[in-house]
């Protein structure tokens, strides 16, 4: 156990699996596969495994995704880290190939591969292409691809081990806005399921559902609301495909109030799917969404920070829904 960042936790999982499996490869572009944390050895995948197995490439994320896909089809486990600027450059590769090849071949094709898709840090000032948070929806709509979005280092490590051991292709969304989260994470490998939401707080007044980059503000809001006496049940989706319907529906059956929180654009954000599943299964509940408006994020911090859902927004929306 040591304090580890998201990236250190992820690379620790990768390092362990690559040590076990001499065939496994890793393709990177901008972000050298290196991480350090006080008291633990520096992880440098490139140095440890050599440039035959771990290689950086030109700026061609579509090739990176295609490369690991082809490696997987040929029987080698493979993973790639796609920087956020390229996370839609490779979209078609996942949508039309990774997600469909098993079905199209009647089960002949097998793809034990992980696509780590960085989402922007949503840094104020970066604007549009460099501040958006939107790919959760695009990737979660793809069938045949498991799409997960961990929200803390502990889940990140466990889900990365699970993803690397999965015989299906996994889109592992990494909200780079979480890169500063640091917490105690076990040193040995462990698995965390890829299809289960996590209940972060139990309560009976309202269900709040969030995921990925939005979770820190959701958790902050949860504490604020609880300190004001509201019994909040807070769910972290963790997996977007498949979505853990049972956990959501059971909770909303109890609370009859569902608030979803997304940093993704409002229209067709993951919360829309969560609400739809609850509404199909629970009568008489009330629903509300908090999400980023249907607008690209402008550069000016004044505009951007006003638009991005935060704990205050969540608290106010929850009170409206419960009150």
């Amino acid at each position, binding site marked *: 156990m040591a304090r580890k960042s998201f990236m250190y936790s992820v690379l620790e999982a990768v390092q362990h699996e690559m040590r076990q499996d001499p*065939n496994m490869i890793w393709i990177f572009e901008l972000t050298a596969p290196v991480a350090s944390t006080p008291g633990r050895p520096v992880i440098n995948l490139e140095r440890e495994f050599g440039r*035959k197995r771990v290689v950086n490439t030109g700026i*061609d994320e*579509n090739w990176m995704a*295609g490369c690991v896909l082809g*490696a997987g089809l040929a*029987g080698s486990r493979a993973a790639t880290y796609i920087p956020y600027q390229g996370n839609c450059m490779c979209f078609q590769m996942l949508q039309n190939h990774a997600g469909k090849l098993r079905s199209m071949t009647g089960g*002949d094709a097998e793809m034990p591969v992980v696509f780590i898709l960085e989402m922007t840090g949503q840094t104020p000032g970066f604007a549009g292409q460099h501040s958006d948070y939107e790919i959760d929806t695009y990737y979660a709509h793809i069938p045949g691809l498991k799409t997960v979005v961990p929200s803390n280092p502990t889940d990140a490590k466990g889900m990365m081990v699970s993803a690397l051991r999965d015989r299906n292709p996994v889109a592992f969304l990494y909200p780079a806005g979480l890169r500063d989260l640091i917490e105690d994470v076990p040193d040995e490998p462990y698995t965390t399921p890829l299809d289960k939401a996590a209940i972060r707080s139990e309560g009976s007044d309202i269900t709040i559902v969030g995921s990925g980059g939005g979770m820190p503000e959701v958790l902050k809001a949860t504490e604020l609301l609880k300190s004001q006496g509201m019994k909040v049940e807070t769910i972290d989706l963790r997996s977007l495909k498949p979505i853990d319907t049972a956990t959501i529906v059971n909770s909303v059956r109890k609370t009859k109030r569902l608030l979803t929180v997304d940093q993704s654009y409002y229209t067709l954000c993951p919360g829309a799917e969560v609400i739809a599943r609850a509404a199909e299964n629970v009568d008489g509940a009330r629903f509300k969404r908090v999400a980023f408006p249907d607008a690209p994020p402008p550069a000016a911090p004044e505009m951007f920070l006003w638009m991005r859902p935060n704990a205050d927004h969540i608290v106010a929306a929850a009170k409206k829904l419960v009150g």
Partner: protein
Amino acid sequence: MTARHDVLEKDSRDRREPAATRRTFLRGIAGAGAAVSLGSQAAWADGEIGFWAKDLGPDQLIHMYTTIQRIRWFERTCADKMLTEPNYRGYNHFYVGQEAVAAGVSAALKNTGGIMEADLVYSTHRPSGHAIAKGVDVRKMAAEYEFKATGLNKGYAGEMHIADKSVGFMGADGMIGPGPVIATGSAFAIRARGSKQVVVNYGGDGTYATPHFHSTLNNAALLKLPFIYVLENNLYHQYAHYSYSCPMKDIAVAAKTYGIPGVVVDGQDVVQVYNAAKEAVERARAGEGPTLIEAKTYRYYNHWGAPGAKPGELGAFGYDPLAITSFRPERELRAWMSRDPVDISRSTLIAWKVFDRAKADAIEAAAKQEMIDAFAWADKQPTAKPEDGLKHVFVEGEVAARQFG
């Protein structure tokens, strides 16, 4: 200039001398507008270009001829079913005319041992020939084309996505572009794990203009991957001549940018194809990196299905749907049919005394019968169960039905 209609038809070209036959091909190439790289022409002028495929014994040569015939008759049987049986549900992007390419390439590959040992082949939307040459079971293929539950891919694939890992046939892919990129990924994995496999990617002239073409060759060259891009230039993508999308005559010249060999080869001559493939495979296995082979070839049918074709006859003529920007002229097709890969391989092997005409005919007859039997077997197979549509999305389990609300 007449098309071969049937195995029993006596073809006078059987009696030609091989040298004369070779000259005919060369004239044919010039006449039909195909090009041969200067390098090869110079080699030909010297008279020694490995044309004789000295490393191949009679069995292997006969196997190549047999492969050509099996592809030809798989397809002709399929075409005839499409033309004569209204209830036949299969379809095909016919490969007829291009058989020597797949037969020649696969003869240079290891075709057994599954994905960890066999050489791997990535195919296109026009997969029958590539698959048969790689060793895929034709009965299961025929059943798959009819969407049968016992088909090669249980009815999920149809023609356009057949795959069979067991022989290293990584699958057809209906998209133009991504396939070659994915294929380089397999080559990367092979290099990383140090196995001796090579990866062959087939692609048409249509793949040249895709952005993926550049990614594929650039990364294969940079990383010295065991990768061979066999570009079958049959002059058209759908109904557009390749000059609409490619500024140069020989696509193989694109190899120069990446500093890798770019080879133009007569795709109608299985021995020439074999020689080029063999050299590329050796290079790849030796860790020397990729090769781009451009095979000049032609398809006798239209892009898809059998429009314009007649039952029992070879090729499709006269189909010219409304408003096609550059529909191929019939005389172009007839010129190419006069350099038929079946005829060329047959007369070459007869001239080399590898077999005689009787043996050649017998092989053809057997191939024809095999395919008739395969399609008959396929007909009788069970259709898919509707609910099975929820399977094979993930390795495990099945997804929920959602169509009922």
